[in-house]
């Protein structure tokens, strides 16, 4: 073929080698073979999936860490409860051996009372502003000192509340019983009155949610009064109904050593793996309620104060049973902590796997990138050198004259 000029070919070759040089440089700088989807569309798409999975693994790792701290906190609180119960058993055993004087038994009772306070404090433990043992009602302390009588803020002798007073639709009123350890929740529907609430209380008593003797009445001062007629029983009442005003304990009606659980039974699940969730909390109703801890302690204190040796002995048996029960309740929590520790290692390995997957998809090793760059430089220089030699020469350079 007749060749007239080599300039177009040279231009083209220079363009090609420059492009290769530019690509090699970018790959070396970024450490990535795929810097834009067009570099390798399939790899780019796979990389997106891989990165999403990596982000999840990072998140699970963070969740594991958060839960480890949270559950460790819970476990320490339970340790406090366990050691308090052990001390209480010792006190009770001493008191039940019949050799202690009445005065000494009073001292024992006082000490037992103090142990109960410790247990309640532990039950009200919080972690970073959230109460650990309240179920999902984590914004306020789950164990509250109980009283026999609660009265409404609203209602006076001149303008009393009555059974026909309408309640605010959607308002929630709760009655927590220290003895049964349960809570009655009443949500007012449209058209409900105080009478409806009274009927609800009565059926809660029949159902056993509230102990016998708890009633809701209008007292002489025109207030709604929710009370128990059992002086050793206690309740805690809450209402957000503005018609009632806030429910508060009538002064002088607090019951010593009586605490009601005002939280709920909800357990929050947290995902720590693609198909692994763990329980993030243990409701207080399960921890202390199922174990009858508070009840047993209350029984012990009363027995030490003025009970017979037999009664003290019975109370010690109750506290021992409660302790065993707490130990059982504790097991799932400890299991979860172990599970979390294992998951932590697993997630660490997952992250390594994903990381190397991403490198093989879109990355390029420094060695390979550097080699590519030298080759591209060599090619570019070769083309330029050849062009410099060949392009300027024509016959005219050689003709004389």
């Amino acid at each position, binding site marked *: *073929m*007749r*060749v*007239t*000029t080599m300039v*177009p*070919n040279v231009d*083209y070759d220079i363009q090609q080698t420059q492009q290769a040089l530019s690509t090699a440089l970018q790959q070396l700088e970024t450490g990535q073979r795929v*810097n*834009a*989807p*067009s*570099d*390798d*569309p*399939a790899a*780019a*798409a*796979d*990389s*997106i*999936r891989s*990165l*999403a999975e990596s*982000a*999840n693994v*990072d*998140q*699970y790792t*963070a*969740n594991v860490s*958060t*839960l480890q701290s*949270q559950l460790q906190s819970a476990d320490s609180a339970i340790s406090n409860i366990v050691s308090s119960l052990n001390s209480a058993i010792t006190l009770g055993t001493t008191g039940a051996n019949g050799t202690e004087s009445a005065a000494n038994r009073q001292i024992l009772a006082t000490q037992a009372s103090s142990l109960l306070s410790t247990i309640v404090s532990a039950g009200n433990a919080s972690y*970073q*502003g*959230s109460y650990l043992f*309240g*179920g*999902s*009602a*984590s*914004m306020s302390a789950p164990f509250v000192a109980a009283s026999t009588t609660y009265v409404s803020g609203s209602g006076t002798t001149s303008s009393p509340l009555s059974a026909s007073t309408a309640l605010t639709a959607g308002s929630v009123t709760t009655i927590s019983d220290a003895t049964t350890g349960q809570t009655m929740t009443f949500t007012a529907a449209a058209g409900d009155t105080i009478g409806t609430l009274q009927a609800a209380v009565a059926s809660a008593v029949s159902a056993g949610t509230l102990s016998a003797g708890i009633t809701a009445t209008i007292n002489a001062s025109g207030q709604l009064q929710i009370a128990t007629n059992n002086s050793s029983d206690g309740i805690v009442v809450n209402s957000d109904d503005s018609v009632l005003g806030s429910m508060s304990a009538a002064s002088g009606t607090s019951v010593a050593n009586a605490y009601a659980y005002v939280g*709920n039974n*909800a357990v*929050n*699940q*947290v*995902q720590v793996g693609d198909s692994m969730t763990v329980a*993030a909390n243990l409701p207080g109703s399960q921890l202390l309620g199922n174990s009858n801890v508070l009840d047993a302690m209350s029984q012990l204190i009363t027995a030490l104060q003025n009970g017979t040796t037999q009664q003290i002995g019975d109370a010690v048996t109750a506290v021992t049973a409660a302790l065993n029960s707490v130990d059982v309740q504790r097991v799932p929590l400890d299991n979860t902590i172990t599970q979390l520790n294992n998951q932590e290692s697993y997630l660490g390995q997952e992250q390594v796997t994903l990381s190397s997957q991403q490198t093989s998809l879109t990355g390029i090793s420094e060695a390979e990138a550097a080699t590519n760059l030298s080759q591209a430089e060599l090619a570019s220089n070769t083309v330029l050198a050849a062009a410099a030699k060949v392009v300027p020469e*024509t*016959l*005219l350079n050689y*003709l004389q004259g």
Partner: protein
Amino acid sequence: MSSLNTALSIASEALSASTTALQTVTNNMANANTPGYTREVVEFQSVPGDNNGSANPGDGVTIASVQSLRDELLQRQIEQQTQDQGSANAQLGSLQQIQTVFTTSSQDIGTEMSALFSSISTLSTAPTNSADRQAVLTAGQNLANAFNTASNTLTQQQTALNAQVTQDVSQINQLTQQIAALNPQIAALQSQGQDGGTLQDQQDQLVLQLSQLTGVTITNSNDGITLSTGNGTPLVMGSQSFALQTTTGSDGMVHVLDANGNDITSTLSGGDLGGSIQTRDQTIPGLLNQLNSLAYDFGNAFNAAQANGYDQNGNPGGDFFNVPATSANAAASISMAISDPSLIAASSDGTSGSNGNLANFSAIQTSPLGSSGQTPTDSYASLVYQVGTLTSNANAESNATSSSLLQLNNQLNSVSGVSIDQESTNLISYQQSYEAAARVVTTVQALYQVLLTMGTSAAE
């Protein structure tokens, strides 16, 4: 009969022929870098002698013609490749800009979706933590922004392409006018049996420029070349050119009309115009559809999850995202519907510390979404794959046509291109034949002198 006069006249014809040849060489050399110039060669022809017996030599040389060496087939092939290249480059340019918004970074849609799901998972460990709640809203806002940005990038490209279409049509009209003007002049030359010469070169260059802009079908006729678009809309016939018009349609796009006002936009292909129209009217709307579907389905899924639970105040959850009624424009308009962190519906039972409803949000990540049936991540990955493939294909096409054009141009150059080396040797040849003819003239002049002084005392 031979005579000194005949020799002289042959020599002077030879001088003239050499001069013409030298002029041709000079012209070629001068135009060595003129784009589209086809080299000229002189065709020497020997003049036969009188048929008067065997003793009569020929009557010298004459120049039969000066020819331009062109190859019409190669020219047409080059025009075709140029149309393909124009189209590929137009698409590549747009797609490379679009691609940046789908490249993994700290702010692309895929990253922001992951960040949103992560923030929700963090919240599940501490549902009442107000900082964690705020982080969810921030992540939601970032994702909405990412959708908005991607959509805007696509629609901005369409706007740029509208300007490009208008500009291309205006240039096309100028070129067709110029091409049509040359047709009668070239036709006149051809009817006399001559090559179109420089005029043909000019017209070929104009057609090449036109090919860069749009796909054209080229046919020859007695009135010159006829140009029409792919579907037969005439652009040039004989001395007449037909201007295209542009108008903005109800869809906000610039449409191309033929001389009679018919909308031919969707029939145009090839060249920058064809490539721009394809990108603007097919490629980008396709990508926008997928993007809008993703935004629409994702937003609705989040709103449905909100509705399943309760916020921190115990009220049923309201919308998380503002999503339009249909998926059209969903990506451009998606925005946050809540700014108060307590309105996130984390709770499944109305209590403020419950995280039970957050599982419904997390499930979105692994559930098939809306009409696509793919998870959000897969849906986004498909979109990225598509953008990558389109760009990579346009790039490959652009490279292929460049390489092909190089080959074709080299072939054309081998026929029509000026070789300085070759012209230099021709220069030497013609210089020598000129010198030889001049030498003959001098010699004949001397012989005349001898003849005139024959038999006189001056002839010594």
